[in-house]
């Protein structure tokens, strides 16, 4: 079992950070009153952990008896859809964006299903069920609109807990209906502490210097920190202070790509880069992430004077990328634009020689 799963805290008392928030959340579950929740924060900050804690606090250990189920839906145009759900007697968890643009159907069906059946178990702690929707920021606008009134309508029988990385893509109409809970990423020092204590439990000795380096490499993402720690252990144990910390391969890949672009601006490079981009996309790296990493790499190595233009172009291309539906065009067009800007700049600089 992975360390990250093995030592995931199961109730509020065991949480390592954001303790004050934990007491607040605990208060939330005590009263009969329980609002819809929208939990948001960066990757690996512990959103899911907090949600499971809330569920446990609400319904007791019964929520941990999970079963996987495939549910079937039919769209109005008679297309058959399948989606995986994880459910217990008290809750159901689903990621509607799995079905792409048909997410609205899933949301409507699931919530109506859950909401129309009352809690039959008399001994149940609560009279409502919980629907957990993950990745709400990837829902289509349509699906989000569908949620609005549904959330109010069925509030007697069901509560919705939503989980999102960034709240800016959630329409205000939804966030105004929920209690929004912000989960900031843990501080580096906290990650170091957690790494140390986890390793202690596993009987691994982790030198403080290495722990600090892992924490830095993790981008304040606790799950990633634990994974890195495990990978390091596989590569070399006992640890040494200056051990190599493995980088994510796609990051290395993008860095190399940025190097190519900076080195030579020509049609050949462009077609080379196209292959690389396809490779990344077909490996399911989100286009937004590719864009972000690429931009950071390019900016780091380019001059101040072109920075402004590059950033402006990036923002524009990125915007078009989410609007359009062929990601490769926009990525490639940005690369071409960057090459043009960079080359013009270089020629101006060294044109006199």
């Amino acid at each position, binding site marked *: 079992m992975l360390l990250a799963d093995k030592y995931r805290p199961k109730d509020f008392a065991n949480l390592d950070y954001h303790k004050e928030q934990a007491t607040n959340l605990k208060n939330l579950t005590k009263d009969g009153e329980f*609002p819809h929740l929208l939990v948001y924060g960066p990757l690996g900050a512990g959103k899911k952990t907090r949600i499971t804690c809330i569920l446990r606090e609400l319904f007791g250990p019964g929520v941990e008896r999970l079963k996987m189920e495939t549910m079937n839906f039919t769209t109005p145009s008679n297309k058959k859809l399948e989606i995986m759900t994880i459910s217990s007697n008290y809750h159901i968890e689903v990621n509607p964006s799995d079905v792409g643009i048909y997410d609205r159907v899933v949301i409507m069906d699931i919530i109506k299903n859950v909401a129309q059946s009352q809690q039959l178990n008399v001994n149940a702690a609560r009279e409502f069920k919980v629907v957990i929707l993950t990745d709400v920021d990837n829902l289509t606008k349509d699906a989000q*609109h569908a949620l609005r009134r549904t959330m109010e309508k069925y509030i007697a029988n069901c509560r919705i807990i939503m989980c999102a990385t960034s709240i800016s893509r959630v329409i205000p109409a939804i966030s*105004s209906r929920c*209690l929004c809970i912000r989960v900031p990423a843990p501080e580096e020092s906290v990650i170091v502490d957690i790494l140390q204590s986890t390793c202690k439990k596993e009987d691994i000795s982790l030198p403080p210097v290495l722990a600090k380096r892992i924490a830095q490499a993790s981008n304040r993402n606790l799950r990633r920190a634990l994974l890195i720690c495990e990978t390091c252990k596989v590569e070399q144990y006992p640890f040494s202070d200056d051990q190599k910390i493995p980088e994510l391969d796609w990051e290395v890949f993008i860095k190399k790509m940025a190097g190519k672009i900076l080195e030579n601006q020509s049609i050949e490079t462009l077609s080379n880069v196209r292959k690389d981009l396809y490779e990344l996309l077909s490996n399911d790296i989100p286009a937004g992430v590719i864009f972000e990493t690429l931009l950071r790499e390019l900016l780091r190595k380019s001059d101040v004077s072109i920075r402004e233009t590059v950033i402006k172009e*990036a923002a524009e291309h990125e915007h078009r990328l989410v609007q359009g539906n062929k990601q490769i065009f926009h990525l490639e067009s940005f690369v071409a634009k960057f090459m043009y800007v960079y080359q013009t700049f270089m020629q101006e600089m060294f044109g006199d020689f």
Partner: protein
Amino acid sequence: MEAYLKSGKLGESSSKSSGKSAAPKKPKSIHWVEKYRPKAVTEVVDQSDVVSVLEQCLTGADLPNLLFYGPPGTGKTSTILAAARQLFGDMYKNRILELNASDERGIQVIRDKVKSFAQLTASGVRPDGKPCPPFKIVILDEADSMTHAAQAALRRTMEKETKSTRFCLICNYVSRIIEPLTSRCTKFRFKPLNENLAYERLAYICEQENVLIDDNDKLLNLLVERSGGDMRKAITWLQSCAILSGHKQKIGLQHVQEVTGVVPAHWLEEFLKVCKESKEFSALDSFVKKLLYEAFAVSQILDQLNEKIINSDEFNDKQRTIIGEKLGDVSFHLQEGGTEYIQLIELGNSIMKAYSIV
């Protein structure tokens, strides 16, 4: 429609049927937003135009087709539901058809369901002999998310059935409703709630619910101010504060800040400082990363930044224009789903540019 009624009245009906044990528990789990929804048209706060029209209709005048538009949480849905309840009394269930974005309402539904509902005639008396208006109401909530085809299909239906049916369209943006429909309706704009009235309402709820608030005036005003005239938001926040602080505990400033998601001022100051002082990309890069790890809502950051820049003396008009324009762009890009990191970098870059102009 029926489901709504179920949920709206669930408290009463189930406590009757399930006996004593559930009765004391039920009322607790009603959300304040639902509990304090206006029950009568006259209770609707601060929307005098529409209230006076509906009041006249209640006393017997004819009701035009309605189009309500305005920002969220200003009482559009509440108003029409309250009016319907008053107009039809117990028959309310049979006399309205409520369709919202969560229901299927493509062109097919408009053609079949709405049309057949509209064609039914309604009698002018209630079962108990009292008179009531001889029409039904079709409420199309969130009409701005209807397709244009579906809207177009409504046009003739709306006119043909005026005898027996009134339509009420509710939307946030009137510009998304096609012209032929708007010209068939009487338009009412719901304006954001007046701060004083919103404050009074919150204070009333606090009193009713026995909520204790530390430093009463200031915190309630903060809630009202941050809600920007959205009553639903303000009430949800108030309730969330009350729950977060625990039973019988006072609500403190930290609860209000947590719930409203206000970004602490020092972050904004640091943002400006980084833009002002650093000439290096890496400084901005690492600051934006750090800011994003805190997971603040970027729209909130933009809001507060906007306020700060407009009110501060540090910038001259030209600088403000540059930053303001970029704020608009960035906010638009984010709404459409842009990446927060890139957009914030872009914003920071413009602020740097603004600083370099003196």
